[in-house]
Each structure stands twice: as structure tokens, then as C-alpha cells.
């Protein structure tokens, strides 16, 4: 394994710059042959202030109250453009706009207050063959000014393409989707056409596939789709965890949530103190229900 280099960025990168870089044809991506290699490089941004107004806007968008304890989604939002910038680099082996967010796990070791200053470190790791291509993890670490880890945010992405585990290669490939049996819904989300634009306004993530039907079609999606992390973050708010305690926030994404659209959700409070939320698109005209996401929020300690 190559020794890791840490590159300090002066500031959190801006989304337009990252997306512009991602659209530029890359030598690494064009000439790739054989096993792809993830760059042994970490991006670091020091002294990032958690803005109280952004934290408030995130809370309000998700239907929660703006207390001084930061919603864990704010930490993800803070680190996301840094990870994205790393993935938009020339030597990154996959096209950024083609990767699919499969899973997310955020481990928060202590509560975070608005106005706190943190350091953010992002790296990519754990490349694995998948039946549809390759998966890898983008890992963001949020540290306090004493160097103690506040939170670790692991996003697992799928880059579609050939891999040793790709379907038809004989590798372990459970090609049939697990059948989803919807539980009794406890709530309904009526998501307007502006859902993606509203999340973009608070997170900065104006990926065209979330912004409108027109821009989504330009990137091969029939309709605009909701940001996965919007659905995951809203589920966390509605799970009502005690944000003053450490917690783990697990998210698994399935079918995309198309906009405008309706998602049924079902919450369950478990004996271990965790709360789960499954969200699905109700099937119509004989089509089956499609599971969109499953979220678990678990208090730790």
C-alpha cells in the first residue's frame, strides 16, 4: 500500500468548481485498464466553522427545531464537497457523476454545537468488486481543535462498470432483488418538485440530477430524484434521537425517490433504544412497492 499524502485545502471547495472538474474528460478515466486504483491522498480543511444559520436552515428544512446541537447531517454536508473534490481529481478512476450512493454510516462520538470550529479530513478507501462494478468508501473525519475525532462519516459508492464480480462472470452475484414487503406505514412524505432545490439551497449540492426534470434528463435520469441524504436526514429528525448523546446513523439506499413524489415511511422504536425508518414508493397499476431507503439511528453509550 502506498503511503498516504495529505493535502491541505484552504477552504471547503465550492460545488460548481467540483462539478465542473468532474465533467472535464480525465486521462485516468479514459485510459483505465485492469484493476482501478484509488488515490492514496487525503484532503484536509482546517478551521471550518459550523455556521449557525446553515444549521438552522437544515433543521427547519427537515422539520426539526433549531437547537444549539448540530444535526449530524450538517457534518455530512460540511465534508461532502471535500470528498467530492477528491473524487473529481484527474487520477480518480471513476467518473464522479456516474457513482451511486449505496450506503452511509455516520458515527458521532460527541454532540456538536453550532459555531464550533472543526477540521475535516476526507479520503477514499476499500475498493471492492461488486456485481455491477466497483464499490469504494469515501471517509470523512471531523475533528475538534485538539485533534480528537468528533465524527466519522463513511459513504459507500458504486461505480458501475466491469469488475471481477460483475454479473455473468460467475462470481457471487445475487442478481435478483430481494422482495420487499412493505410494513404498515406510519407516515407519508409528499415531496414537491422543489425538494431537490430546497436541499441544494441548504447543502450547496446542486447536482443537476436533483434540481429539475429537465436537468436530470440531461444526465440520463427520466425524472429529478431527491438527494438520498435529504431522505436520510429527515428520517433522523423524525426518529427524534437525543443529540446530546453519541449516536450511529446508518443508511441504506435502494430505489431513487423521484420528484415530485410520495414516499411512505414506517418507523419502529426498538428495545435497544434505536429507531429504524424504512421508506418506499408505493406501487401503482400492479407494480410492486419499491423500497427507497432504510435508516437506523442508534444511541451509543
Amino acid at each position, binding site marked *: 500500500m502506498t503511503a498516504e499524502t495529505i493535502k491541505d485545502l484552504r477552504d471547503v471547495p465550492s460545488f460548481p468548481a467540483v462539478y465542473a472538474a468532474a465533467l472535464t474528460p480525465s486521462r485516468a478515466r479514459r485510459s483505465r485498464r485492469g484493476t482501478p486504483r484509488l488515490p492514496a491522498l487525503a484532503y484536509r480543511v482546517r478551521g471550518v466553522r459550523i455556521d*449557525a444559520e446553515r444549521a438552522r436552515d437544515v433543521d*427547519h428544512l427537515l422539520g426539526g*427545531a*433549531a437547537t444549539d*446541537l448540530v444535526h449530524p447531517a450538517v457534518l455530512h454536508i460540511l465534508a461532502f464537497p471535500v470528498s467530492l473534490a477528491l473524487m473529481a481529481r484527474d487520477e480518480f478512476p471513476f467518473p464522479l457523476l456516474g457513482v451511486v450512493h449505496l450506503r452511509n454510516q455516520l458515527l458521532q462520538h460527541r454532540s456538536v454545537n453550532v459555531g464550533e470550529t472543526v477540521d475535516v479530513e476526507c479520503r477514499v478507501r476499500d475498493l471492492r468488486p461488486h456485481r455491477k462494478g466497483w464499490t469504494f468508501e469515501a471517509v470523512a473525519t471531523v475533528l475538534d481543535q485538539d485533534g480528537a475525532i468528533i465524527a466519522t462519516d463513511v459513504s459507500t459508492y458504486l461505480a458501475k462498470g466491469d469488475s471481477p464480480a460483475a454479473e455473468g462472470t460467475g462470481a457471487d452475484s445475487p442478481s435478483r432483488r430481494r422482495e420487499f414487503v412493505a410494513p404498515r406505514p406510519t407516515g407519508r412524505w409528499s415531496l414537491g418538485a422543489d425538494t431537490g432545490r430546497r436541499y441544494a439551497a441548504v447543502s450547496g449540492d446542486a447536482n443537476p440530477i436533483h434540481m429539475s426534470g429537465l436537468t436530470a434528463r440531461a444526465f440520463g435520469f427520466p425524472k429529478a430524484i431527491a438527494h438520498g441524504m435529504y431522505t436520510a436526514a429527515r428520517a433522523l429528525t423524525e426518529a*427524534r434521537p*437525543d443529540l*446530546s448523546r453519541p449516536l450511529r446513523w446508518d443508511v441504506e439506499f435502494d430505489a431513487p425517490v423521484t420528484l415530485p413524489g410520495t414516499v411512505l415511511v414506517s418507523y419502529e422504536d426498538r428495545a435497544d433504544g434505536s429507531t429504524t425508518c424504512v421508506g418506499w414508493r408505493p406501487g401503482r397499476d400492479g407494480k410492486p412497492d419499491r423500497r427507497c431507503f432504510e435508516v437506523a439511528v442508534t444511541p451509543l453509550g
Partner: protein
Amino acid sequence: MNSSPRDALILGGNRLPFARANGPYAGISNQDLLTAALDGLIARYGLQGARLGEVAGGAVLKLAGDLNLTRESALGTPLDPRTPAIDLSKACATGLEAVVHVSNRIRLGQIDSAIAAGVDSTSDAPIEVSARLRRILHRASAARSTADRLKALAAIRPADLAPVPPRNGEPRTGLSMGEHMALTAAQWGITREAQDELALASHQHLAASYDAGFHDDLVTGYRGLSRDQNLRADSTLEKLAGLKPVFGVKSPQVAEPTMTAGNSTPLTDGASAVLLGSAEFAAERGLTPLARVIDARSAAVDFVHGDEGLLMAPAYAVPELLDANGLTLQDLDVYEIHEAFAATVLATLKAWESEEFCRERLGRDGALGAIDRTKLNPLGSSLAAGHPFAATGGRIIASLAKHLHARHVETGTVQRGLVSICAAAGQGTVALIESVA
């Protein structure tokens, strides 16, 4: 003493620092503030997952959509979601009425524990549409055909579109609260100097109590604020004397206006919460009872045609409360008289000192008499802290209970405190609490 089936004990409190309107809490809603205040109380007293008897609270300036403000706020905290909640409203007395409401329920044995809370944001006050526009929109929405709908909507005139902010004044007199108070101040001959002295004392007392660390377990910082923003520790009589009168300047009855921005409370944002419970609940949770709620009264005056001053209702409610409990005005150790305006406190005290008022208005044999002014608002009050309407009752009850308890421990004798809060529409609520040690 009033006999009661069992005690309703004040166990502690928490509030946010009060912020000046359109200051650090701009863009923050009542629900945000109330949730933050409740969160702090829950964290301080280890109430995570607790199923309490009730959370009672309210706001004076309240959005129509916030009908279950207290319940929605409580649901956003780590309290057991099966904790019931109720919204109450009685202008500036809302917070104290919430305390009275839950303490009555505890004393009757209906519940064992409760939180009494209050919140207000003048920065996020509701703005409504005009009554005419509202009627037009309802008519349009009830129309059966597109043509009828368009016909209804065609009645809209540009003037109908002007937003309607909350009314700053009494609907029946057209006068603002400050203008009403200026009339009462003139009637009682309350001087500018006396008002400024009271305002200065309020700032000095509050600053001293902060410096002594008194508020460390009563206030949780929010949005970068750790003390009440309105507090001017360095205020002086000279600075206060330099301010121009703002109320009474348009009233011909007020020869010399005396009420300034310095001796009137500013518009503020904030929230407060008080934890109450039975002795059993306190023991179960290992909490130290600070004080018990003895009794409360409310009164109202007919201010509409000028029979009495708008904010004078507590002057009537307090004697009734004292009589019911066999106490004289001088039997009390601390007087917490809400400083809506410095003149309100001074006019109330002057009324109790007046033979004429006490005979003719209260039907008593003579005056209630003067109080020892060193016992008045010893921790500072609304002139310094600010007055987010419904949050004031909780602020006073929590700090008074803590203060009485500390004095009791110090002196070995039971300490009695009076809380008096005037409210819009000529109302007032007063309560008596006594230390537990």
C-alpha cells in the same frame, strides 16, 4: 396557610438568555426557542426518556399553525413522547399561569410531575393578511366554478394585500400599553427619577447575580448568547436621564412624559421552563426541592373607560392572595414584581401605600403599607433581562425558588416570595411561593 392535599414543589428551571428583537435569535422560531429551553432543562435534571405528567406552556405572539406549540416542542426533545402537553395563553401572565396550572394539578394528585414553560419571539411575530383579503380568499376557495372563483378574486384591491403585523396596543382603547402606563404614571405622580433609579437597580442586581454565578444552573446559552443581551452592567443614572421620553408624549393628560426606552422593557426573544413535581417525584429522581407553590390569584380591572389603569390588576390580586393566606404585605421576604415598566412597579407600590386606594378601591380599613425596598426584585427583573412575554413567569419562578431556597439554607427560616405579573387587557396573575430546605 392554605391547606392543600399535597405540595407542588419547584425543583429547578432553565431558560435561554433573552435576546433583543431582531438580534441573535432572528430567523429562529418559537418552537426552536422552546425546544432549546426544554432540552436544557431535560439535560440538567436527567429527564431523558422520562414520562412526565404534563408540559404546559404557551406563547403570546403565536402563529396560527403553532396551535400545539408546546406539544410539538416537547416531541422534539428526549422526553418520553407519551408526555401530554397543553398550550395556554394569557398575555404576559402566560408563563405564571402555566406554573399555577401544573401546580394545581400536582396538588390535586392528578399528576406527579410537570414542566411549566413559556416562549416568545418578537423577531418572528406572526404577520397576517387583512380581514377583507381573508374573506375574499375563503369565498374564492368555496366557489364551485372557475368563473365564480375569478369573480371572487377580482374583488381584491391593492390595499388588501398589505400584511397585518400583530397589533401593538389595546384593541378597545387604541392606546399602546406604554401609553396606558404613562396615564397611570401621571395619575400616581411617578417621577422620572424614581423610574430611572428602579431601572438602574434592575441592571445592577441582574449583573451582580450573573457575576456571582447565580444563573449558571438557570440559563443555557443559545446561538452564541450566554447572558441577557439587554443587560447593561455599566448603565448609570446619567445615561438613563439622557434618554428621551417615548410614552405619554401624545397624551394631553400627561403634562410631563417620564417613560423612556431605559425605564420600559424592550421587545425581546426567549424561552423559559420550570420543573415541578410532588415530594415523591423529587425523591424518586433525587432532586432537591427548592420551594413550594402556596397559592395564586388573578384579577382584572376595567381600564376601558378609565376606571382603573391597564396594568393595575395585580394591585387588587395581591391583597386577596395575602388575605387568603393570613399574611400581611410585610410578611414576605422577597417581592418579585414584573417590571413591564418601572412605573408599573412604582404605581403598584404607591397604591398599596395609599390609604385612599386601599379604602376606596380595595375596601380595606387602611393601607397595606410600604415594603422594604431591599427585598424588591433582588436579582433584577424585566427592565434588565428583557421580557419575552410568556417566558417571564418561568424566569421569575425558577430564580425566585432558587434564591428563597439558598436564603432558607443560610438563615434556617422559611422564606416567602411573592410573584406579581401584570398583563394586557387589564389582567394580572400573582402567586405565593415559600422555600423548602
